[in-house]
């Protein structure tokens, strides 16, 4: 399977993501510069975390105008996989590929720590390897992760089972104590209606090796690799 990791000026989790794809999952993976127009016929696109354009104006507000976004939209309409991690999730929202918006964390502070999420839908290309009800320990690192959406929008997400991950406490209960940033209904990760574009605030590439604290993040990459293999 071939992954393309999109690099914007200000991205800083691009090399972490490429390292995991190549060295942990031995998959083919390459960088794609935000001004290119060629996705190197990758099977899946990953927009990594970071501070694209310094997060100035709004997170992802300037990135959505980069030429590569046209190709990413085209890639998505062909049903291929797109994963936006943290800043990548914000860019997908600004570009209209995912609903809702990320507001400042309710405590108005940058938060970097391990948190727990529960998988809410295991039948998607991103979550087939997640055991139902099992809690995943994955770190977050953001200032604007407070997911917000209209009540109607939330209803649609619930009805179409587009909510893939919710923040929870260690024992798996969806509580306000387990919600680090004030996200509506503890939402940590969602996908589009069609189910091939996912946005996730926690960083799975920072939880793919026990050496750095957790392997739970592997489940997401393994699901994508497995889904792609089954598709071809």
């Amino acid at each position, binding site marked *: 399977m071939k992954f393309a990791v999109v690099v914007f*000026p*200000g*991205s*800083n*989790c691009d*090399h*972490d993501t490429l*390292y*995991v794809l190549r060295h942990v999952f031995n998959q083919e993976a390459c960088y794609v510069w935000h001004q290119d127009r060629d996705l190197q016929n990758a099977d899946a696109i990953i927009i990594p*975390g*970071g*501070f694209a*354009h*310094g*997060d*100035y104006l709004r997170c992802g507000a300037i990135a959505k105008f980069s030429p590569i976004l046209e190709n990413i939209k085209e890639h998505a309409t062909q049903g291929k996989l797109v994963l936006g991690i943290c800043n990548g999730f914000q860019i997908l929202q600004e570009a209209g590929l995912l609903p809702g918006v990320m507001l400042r964390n309710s405590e108005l*502070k*940058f*938060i*970097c*720590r391990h948190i727990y999420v529960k998988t809410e839908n295991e039948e998607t290309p991103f979550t087939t390897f997640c055991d139902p009800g099992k809690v995943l320990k994955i*770190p977050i*690192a953001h*200032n604007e992760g407070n997911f917000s959406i209209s009540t109607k929008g939330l209803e649609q997400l619930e009805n179409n089972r587009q909510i893939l991950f919710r923040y929870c406490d260690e024992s798996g209960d969806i509580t306000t104590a387990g919600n680090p940033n004030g996200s509506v209904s503890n939402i940590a990760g969602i996908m589009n209606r069609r189910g091939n574009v996912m946005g996730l605030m926690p*960083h799975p*590439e*920072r939880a793919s*090796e026990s*050496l*750095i*604290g957790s392997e739970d993040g592997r489940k997401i990459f393994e699901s994508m690799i497995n889904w792609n293999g089954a598709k071809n």
Partner: protein
Amino acid sequence: MSGDKKTTTAVNITANLVESHGLTQDEYKRIKNSLGREPNLTELGIFSVMWSEHCSYKSSRMHLKKLPTEGPQVIEGPGENAGVLDIGEGLAAVFKIESHNHPSFIEPYEGAATGVGGIIRDIFTMGARPVALLNSLHFGPINQAKNQLIMEGVVAGIAGYGNCMGIPTVGGEIYFEQNYSHNPIVNAFCLGIAPANEIFRAKAAGIGNPIIYVGAKTGRDGIHGATMASEEFNEDSETKRPNVQVGDPFLEKLLLEACLEAMSTGAVVGIQDMGAAGLTCSTCEMGSRGEVGIEIELDLVPQREKAMTPYEIMLSESQERMLLVAEKGKQREVLEIFRKWDLDATVIGEVKKNPCLTVYHAGEKVADISNNALADNAPLYDRPATRPQYLDDLELWENIDLPEPSDYNALILEMVRSPHLCSRRWVYQQYDHMVRTNTIVLPGSDAAVLRLKKSSGGLAISVDGNCRFSYLNPQIGAMMAVSEACRNLVCSGAQPIGATNCLNFGSPENPEVMWQFVETIAGISSACRIFKTPITGGNVSFYNETNQAPILPTPVLGLVGKIDDLDHRQESCFSQEGDQIYLLGETRDEIGGSIYLEQRGHPLCGPCPTIDLVQEKALQDQLLRLIENNLIESAHDLSEGGLVFALAESCYGLNCGARVDVSTDLRSDYYCFSESPTRVIVSVRETLEPDFLESISGIPVTKLGEVGGKKLEISINSRMIVSISIQELFGIWDGALDEIFSVE
């Protein structure tokens, strides 16, 4: 004499103008002698910056020479932008620590942020990829609102800059003492990795090579011009010159990537970051290091403001700028790279044979200063030093009447909440300490441990200082600072290999401060010699004082250690119930300067605890051997608060208790709270106890007890004096800062 032209707006140099540039009349005489004429205003500005304490180290240079800087692993010692150590497998560790104290008092967020930006530039200017940041912060008492605002701004500034750059801030230290209220201390440490044979130096070379300005545009920020009667300094010019530099981490991230890319082309001959007094320092230092001339044209310098004068351009402290010398003919390739990253990059001059700095503006020579006029005649002072009077008053502490505490539990619950001892989670959780996925021991342990993806091993880093003990005895305090930093590395399983240091003091013109400075240098030197950790660079920050009240002597040491096999990394928390707890090292009845003494209502006083550096080195060597032979499960060094709090901190991670039962002829409170150095708490698997005991020799070992239960229980001479639930202790310890800063 060539170059005696005055600028068109001739300004006569009055005694007042000289003084307001921080130059003494004698220093002004030296300028005239070395130039052979009166300087013009721009030249006066250049000399005032190059001969300032900050850039010339005129009051400290002769003492800094006493520091040990030799070592087989040293590739680059003091003199360059950062120190460089060989860490094997063809790699080098590039690191340094620098201060940004005064700006952080004026504007905490931007002061701290630009401090981080500056130290990062010192690292990648050597050709290294920055991989980790640490910081050492000192504030006034945190129950005062003003100090809370400063701390909140400083922490947010460090987070804002480091997080945006994608460089993990993996640790640091924070002290709260009265006389930092008006003089906060913000020291930033950065570590980078580079191929050992591809280190870049800040040396201009190659006559005719183009000099290229890259990075942000030049503005009027940070020019410390004086208020004077010439049109350079009229009222509105002052308002035009904001004395606060604002950092742009996004632009520096582009600058970092562009510089590393440009350096990989082989077309870069020399490169220097524009630190204090930007263009002036970089041009002068690059020229003198390369023993060549530098000629620049200020009209070519990208400018953010209109009609900037030569004085302003040469002295501007705008951030995120670098100066590099490229190989003649290859500059187009270099300029292309910076344009790709959307950065300004223009050739502003070239390297000349005649070793002097010549500056043109609007077709006129505005500065013409020979390299040795700046370097050889630079002032060098052997400031008088006298033992401070306060040291005698400290001896009177004998008659402090200190009854033993009646309720240890209540006292400990109170102390664990104090800003000296409580958790720093509220701070480091604002830093992205996981980006680059190399952080394998997270903040909160003794030292941060990083893996190196290109090699099998890793590095451990720690910054440590001890202003309280340095106040009581600067020489011993300095030894303690080096020892604690090394001990923290060893507790994490690393072999200390090199050090950097930042020396924060009051005015060098105060003989008592100068005595503290000289004693501190002596302490650092003897410790670094014994631990074989050469000094590879650092920074000196003087004049940290307000109305003649200097800060405590504040040496901050940054230590780098090497771990060959990452399996030998060690954490400070206990790992399993039933493990046996041992204390390595000896507890002495010395509570001078301790947090306990302060908690009991006494000011910072008393004789400083003593330290035996040979014994400390022996303990560190044996501890490292124990770790390498897998004979221990955890190691945590004892520092502020003493034994009780080191035990508590070792319990929190496992969320379990410890049962300690010891006998001593010390007073129980001295035993619990003494801050004697050279002590480490280790836990040993029961089955390995015999091997553990057998392999230790020459250092005191005391069995303390066992890991288990839900409480921290301590019995001394079979009297249970401490029994507190770890859950309760952790709750207070962990949430103390959150409570202080919560808005509800």
